[in-house]
């Protein structure tokens, strides 16, 4: 089968799930990458190293920033005079949206957020989590091309082969832009939650450190938020040590401790790191829905009956304000060896 893989990137840097999609495509037959933007030389080189046989590139100043309608119409150009059996996307914010639009433009269906993919002859069947991961649905396309988005970290990232090269095919930018990108405001620096290998998350319990004395002049609510923010700084120290990201429960976000962008759970981000530390998080079902596919879950909570312990491999019943700093030191000593 001929597969076209959309390489999602931000300012020329590919999101890792794009290479995972290339890895999946390799198991199906020939693979072409598809990338839009400006300054894509490094990306093109990486695409060959990760295994594409060919890359279709639309380089144009108008494509510098992702714009849904313009990108969708450029994507359609890749189908003029060429035929692709399968069109793969990483399930990123851009990948999901473009896949949805491509399905309309190409008059086919779209299978979103696959966690497994199986080929039976030319027919692909995927499983995808529904009901926030409580159900696994098996779905297939009833139309062609088969358009599928693959969940990040659900498929292995291929090993790159430095020095590989292949065919570069230029395609023209599409038309029909409906938006203007005025700029970006970046998130609080650091590793993106959805790509993180390690996540250290905090809950409502982060505000309960009795040994902290808030600055004078804060009212009770401000003092609570201040206390919690000191707690999140403590989590960030451990996350930084492990090259990870800091997350939060809905309770912590709703209480105003940290921004919504950090929320893990059913109405936040779905994450699946190698290690998930739940600190002061009781484990409401909505939170569990967002992190249950983590490989290893470690829970630190003062309440021995907290539901989070049912999902955790290792647990500590105790004061997180003592355990987390001690754990950071203990991990640091061992990793330094």
């Amino acid at each position: 089968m001929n597969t076209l893989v959309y390489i999602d990137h931000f300012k020329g840097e590919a999101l890792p799930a794009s290479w995972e999609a290339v890895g999946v495509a390799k198991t199906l037959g020939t693979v072409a990458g598809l990338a839009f933007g400006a300054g894509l030389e490094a990306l093109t080189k990486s695409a060959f190293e990760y295994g594409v046989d060919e890359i279709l590139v639309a380089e144009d100043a108008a494509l510098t920033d992702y714009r849904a309608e313009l990108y969708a119409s450029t994507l359609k150009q890749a189908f003029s005079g060429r035929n692709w059996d399968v069109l793969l996307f990483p399930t990123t914010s851009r990948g999901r949206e473009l896949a949805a639009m491509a399905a309309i433009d190409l008059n086919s269906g779209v299978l979103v957020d696959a966690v497994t993919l199986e080929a039976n002859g030319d027919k692909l069947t995927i499983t995808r989590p529904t009901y926030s991961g409580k159900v696994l649905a098996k779905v297939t396309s009833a139309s062609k091309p088969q358009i599928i988005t693959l969940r990040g970290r659900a498929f292995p990232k291929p090993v790159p082969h430095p020095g590989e090269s292949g065919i570069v095919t230029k395609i023209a930018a599409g038309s029909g832009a409906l938006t203007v990108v005025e700029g970006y405001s970046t998130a609080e620096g650091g590793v993106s939650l959805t790509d993180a290998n390690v996540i250290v998350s905090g809950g409502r319990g982060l505000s309960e450190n009795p040994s902290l004395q808030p600055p004078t002049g804060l009212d009770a609510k401000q003092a609570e938020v201040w206390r919690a923010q000191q707690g999140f700084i403590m989590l960030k120290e451990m996350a930084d040590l492990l090259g990870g990201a800091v997350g939060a429960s809905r309770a912590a976000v709703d209480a105003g401790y940290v921004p919504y962008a950090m929320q893990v759970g059913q109405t936040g981000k779905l994450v699946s790191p190698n290690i998930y530390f739940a600190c002061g998080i009781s484990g409401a079902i909505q939170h569990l829905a967002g992190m249950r596919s983590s490989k290893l879950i470690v829970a630190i909570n003062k309440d021995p009956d907290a539901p989070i312990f049912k999902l955790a491999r290792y647990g500590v019943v105790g004061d997180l304000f003592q355990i987390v700093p001690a754990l950071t030191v203990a991990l640091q000593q061992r990793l330094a060896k």
Partner: protein
Amino acid sequence: MKLVACVKSTPDTIATIKVENGKPTWGEAPLVINPWDEYAVESALQLKEANGGTVTAISVGGEEARIALKHALAMGADDALQISDPALAGVDPQGVARILAAVIQKLGGVDLAFFGRQSIDNDSGTTPAQAARLLGWPALTLASVIKVDGANLRVERAIEEGRQIVSAKLPAVISLVKDIGEPRYPSFMGIRRASKAEIPTWSFSQIGIPAPAPMIEYISNEDAPVREVVCELITGANPQEIAEHLADKILGEKLL
């Protein structure tokens, strides 16, 4: 301004979902408005309060769709419209996008169509972008801040890397993420009004489209495997000792 909010009824987030006879079921758990759609209604109401106009809630589905519509009315939507037809049985999410786009077209003069980012049952998250594509309108998805100035729209979108600030002309489709602000609770008066409201229904023939053919095929459903973990509680004489035991266990997993 003429505003619409597209809503759906879903099982409550705390419902226990079990697959029975190949279909997800949720026992006695109530259906509620899809939590993301509450943000869509909230956002439409805020815009109406700032600029004047009307908010119409639309839902595609049988009797259950009225739960989401009544909630939207109770929050303050001016009216509601249910799309109901026996031929809905085989319709997939892309079909729903097609129906909503046709309804928005048929209503005429709509300035903005609001959607939640995804429904918490099917979790596709494709309907807003597809409806926009079908309408030929800009899709401003994952919006966290919205500003309307005359016919101009400026939106901050929550993306992996932070926020992308995008502007466009009305009419447009917007999908909402959570940081738009907490949705209001229905007021007592709102609930009373919603309970008395007559909700009109449209069928495919009234919209003027045939039932969209399914583009994907559902083969089966199964319960997600239960994680078989036994939690090993790490203990020690003091926090340092606990931390050292825990660090050894974690590193022993070879995941770092």
